[in-house]
């Protein structure tokens, strides 16, 4: 990880020195254990703040739409897929972005770790190869990274950036065996009533903070439907109908665009299982229209096009 950090700093300095970019977006050390935080570097003297570790979970592609600067961006597999989507949607140009691609073995879910600690708090965390050493009051524990990955990382099938301008480190082996839609299928196997109950339980936790929306690289609308007053599509209260429709439409809006980076899921302070919604969208788009988002720059986004032979059994 240290080598990766050094390599990121070197390339950042080089890009800034040669004036190939105005800005590097990467990560720096966070203020609390198991956190890294987005970092904006505009001069070589600041470049040494850049780091890489298993806590670089944010999808930095979020910061690309509307940017005027030429940006060097540190990007994992999922982040690169988001960047591809944004380029296709004309939110940023290919020429404007210099992708510093990083093959990724998955990021750590600190909430999963915390849940294991029985209320004990982590004061310090050290990363060592495949393990993390946790220290705190009455706490000293070594945990295996792979047991505490984010859910989106556990089902990831594109750990390696699919495009990049420079790749740091060696490519990692992609998980070919994973059934990324297992949970969706399990959910589908339940009855209507069970599904509705479970969905309403999830969304009734929602506090309408819109962190899921704001963390998503594809939520860049000038005015979101929830904010529109003419017409006001849904009310501002947290009653179930309002929150349910918010989450349905949010998921619908990223159908065919979502790359399952998991940013929404991680951002949610209330622990709503948002991937249960987005993963279904992703699965259906794949099954019905044979499209996978963010894999290349050429394919036309599935909901912006059609095939005369698209399935229509559901239409009378």
């Amino acid at each position, binding site marked *: 990880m240290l080598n990766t950090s050094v390599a990121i700093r070197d390339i950042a300095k080089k890009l800034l020195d040669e004036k190939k970019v105005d800005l590097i977006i990467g990560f720096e050390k966070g203020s609390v254990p198991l956190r890294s935080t987005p970092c904006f570097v505009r001069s070589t003297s600041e470049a040494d703040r850049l780091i890489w570790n298993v806590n670089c979970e944010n999808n930095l592609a979020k910061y690309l739409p509307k940017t005027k600067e030429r940006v060097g961006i540190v990007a994992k597999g999922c982040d690169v897929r988001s960047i591809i989507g944004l380029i296709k949607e004309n939110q940023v140009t290919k020429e404007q972005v210099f992708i510093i691609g990083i093959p990724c073995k998955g990021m750590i879910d600190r909430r999963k770790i915390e849940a294991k600690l029985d209320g004990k708090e982590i004061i310090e965390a050290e990363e060592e190869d495949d393990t993390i050493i946790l220290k705190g009051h009455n706490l000293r524990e070594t945990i295996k990274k792979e047991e505490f990955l984010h859910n989106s990382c556990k089902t990831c099938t594109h750990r390696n950036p699919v495009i990049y301008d420079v790749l740091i480190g060696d490519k990692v082996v992609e998980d070919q065996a994973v059934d990324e839609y297992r949970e969706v299928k399990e959910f589908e196997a339940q009855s209507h009533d069970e599904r*509705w109950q479970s969905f309403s339980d999830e969304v009734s936790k929602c506090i309408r903070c819109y962190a899921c929306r704001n963390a998503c690289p594809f939520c860049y609308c000038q005015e979101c439907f929830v904010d529109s007053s003419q017409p006001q*599509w849904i009310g501002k209260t947290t009653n179930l*109908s309002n929150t349910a*429709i918010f989450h349905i*439409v949010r998921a619908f809006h990223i159908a065919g665009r979502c790359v399952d980076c998991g940013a929404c899921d991680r951002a949610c302070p209330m622990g709503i299982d948002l991937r249960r919604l987005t993963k279904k969208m992703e699965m*259906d788009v794949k099954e*019905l229209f044979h499209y996978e988002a963010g894999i290349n720059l050429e394919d036309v986004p599935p*909901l912006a096009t059609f095939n005369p032979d*698209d399935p229509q059994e559901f239409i*009378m």
Partner: protein
Amino acid sequence: MQQPREKAGEWEPKIIAFLCNWCSYAGADLAGVSRLQYPPNTRIIRVPCSGRISPLLILRSLQHGADGVLVSGCHPGDCHYISSNYVARRKFAILNNFLEYLGIEKGRVQFAWISAAEGKKFAELVQKVTEEVRTLGPATRLVRKQG
């Protein structure tokens, strides 16, 4: 439009039908002109094209108390705007699956292609949708309750 007869205590389904201007609305018109009988439970909203139907319109109908929603446009290949119903079809496919996935009862939201010549099909369709929604009972999921 004739109001559904609501006898005291007897529930009648309320169905919102979004019909495209060029085919389905004309189909409904033909059903009327041809004096075909069909249940009076649908409230028709004419839209320029099935491509205009945003999922928000459907969800908002359900939020405000529609027991069922019917969306209908021109048959594939017949769209007045050349290909909008093809694009809409993709949206509908995703939405249809998604609502069912979340536990909205199958049949609350239905889709159809009705041409201007299909007055009979329209009447039969409304008959069918009304009966299906009636069997499902009053909508409760997604309905906004005060409190």
